[in-house]
């Protein structure tokens, strides 16, 4: 037994190629970004050590502040929307929906698997006002809400909202399926007992379901958070960061700084910041869980 499962050669053969690839392509670049972040110029050409100057610059950079605020707003709206609506849908599936349960769940999940850019293109057309009204504006205009017709993604007041609505539409089915699975795990007797004790729907949710759903809610929030921190593909496909910089996220800012303007060192500072935001944010959400348990 030990000879076979402790076969050193086989272990090396199984683990090393993947481990090497993973180290070079995923882990090394993270450290490399930290190294780049204290330099300025083009690697190999004019490459000067500048210490923490890039970091200092970041704190005074208005474009960075804008990207951070846009990204944080987006995280807040989309996280609440995805997780909140996902939960509501799951409750609906579990307690009210009786017919076509599987069909409805399958359909609600469908947008999750669509290519992000394709969804972006689709919504560009839905929100369009020029040269022709898109789906949303033409429906609004037809049902007598002409005053609501507007360039949804062409003005900074509504662009972020329009983008968030799209991303919530895409992902709420995913969270609903996770919550639904968790609701099925809650024994029916607990719910029955609460009902017999005179619990109404609201109290049932507040006192019985929500404590039991807490771990999965935390998981969903972390998942939504790590997804929204990265904000890139959908914003690029829908608005390209505009109008102006109304939907320009941290990742997009990093991308333009490093690849459009070639400032590798400064771009790396932003990359490091995104990584830290990701780690710290997830830890903070996790903390929520532990506090209650103690």
């Amino acid at each position: 037994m030990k000879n076979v499962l402790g076969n050193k050669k086989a272990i090396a053969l199984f683990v090393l190629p993947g481990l090497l690839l993973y180290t070079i392509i995923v882990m090394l670049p993270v450290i490399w970004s930290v190294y780049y972040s204290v330099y300025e110029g083009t690697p190999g050409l004019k490459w000067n050590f500048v210490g923490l100057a890039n970091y200092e610059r970041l704190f005074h950079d208005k474009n960075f502040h804008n990207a951070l605020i846009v990204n944080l707003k987006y995280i807040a709206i989309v996280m609440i929307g995805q997780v909140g609506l996902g939960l509501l849908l799951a409750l609906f599936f579990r307690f009210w929906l009786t017919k076509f349960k599987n069909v409805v769940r399958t359909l609600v999940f469908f947008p999750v698997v669509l290519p992000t850019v394709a969804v972006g293109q689709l919504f560009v057309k839905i929100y369009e006002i020029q040269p022709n009204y898109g789906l949303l504006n033409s429906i609004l205009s037809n049902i007598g809400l002409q005053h609501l017709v507007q360039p949804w993604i062409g003005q900074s007041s509504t662009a972020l909202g329009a983008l968030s609505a799209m991303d919530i539409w895409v992902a709420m089915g995913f969270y609903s399926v996770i919550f639904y699975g968790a609701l099925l795990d809650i024994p029916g007797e607990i719910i029955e007992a609460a009902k017999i004790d005179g619990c109404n729907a609201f109290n049932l949710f507040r006192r019985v379901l929500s404590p039991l759903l807490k771990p999965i809610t935390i998981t969903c929030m972390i998942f939504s958070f790590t997804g929204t921190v990265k904000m890139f593909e959908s914003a690029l496909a829908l608005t390209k960061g505009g109008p102006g910089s109304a939907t320009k996220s941290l990742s997009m800012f990093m991308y333009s700084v490093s690849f459009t303007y070639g400032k590798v060192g400064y771009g790396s500072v932003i990359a490091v910041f995104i990584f830290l935001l990701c780690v710290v944010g997830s830890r903070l959400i996790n903390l929520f869980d532990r506090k209650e348990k103690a």
Partner: protein
Amino acid sequence: MKKIKIKPLIISLLTAGLVILEVYPLFWMLTASFKKPAEFVSKPAYALNDGFYIQNYIDAWTRGNMATFFKNSLINTLAALVFIVFFSVTIGFALTKMEWKYKNKVASYFGIGIMVPVATALIPLFQIYNGMNLINTRTSLIITYIAFGLSLSIYLVTGFLKSLPDEILEAAVVDGCGIYKLMWTIVVPLMKNAIVTVLVLQFFFKWNDLLFSMTFINDTKLKTIQTGLLYFQDEFGAKNWGAIFASVSMSVLPMLVVYMILNKAVIEGMTAGAVKG
């Protein structure tokens, strides 16, 4: 009597509203992809198509290079999937069932990868590939896809293997099965479900990649479907709605087919993947 009927009515209305909200945009996209250019001007956007104007698809497929983008995405995705499955099964097995000193450390090392944002690795990767003349090659994308697919796949595979009883392996070893034969004849067939989950999940992730392919590839011949669609938008802009709808419909189609066939595995896979966060 009335009181009893109200609740089912509300539920039916909510259900119908939900289904419309999810399905109508896609239905609209499909009908619009068959509209003639003139229909977009003369009729409101929600009107159904007059006929089936196939020219949109022909334009997208040939002039819009969709044929090339499709081929590239398919090659990159499939090549990456083969390696992801191979590595995650062998590594997952070594991390759960084999006996060696550092296996827990290596397992958590692979776990960290789930947290790494793609954007953080992008600049160094570009520099590395640039130095190795890998920019504008399929290789750069495929190896990146493999490496970034490992963490989650290994996590899924180890989760599955942990619940696999050791006795099966012991019996095989007692019968004189070597480690490689054990892998191929016992472990891999037993892991069919986990492998399907990894395949389906990673297929969606890789097919949907935008950030890597737009950074490493700028040669139109090598562009993937996601970058291709963006390029398409710039090229045709607001001028050719029909062709844009056709290209978007085409890029959605493979997802639709895979999802319809495997929707149970997809939903379970996504859920299992999400539990880690």
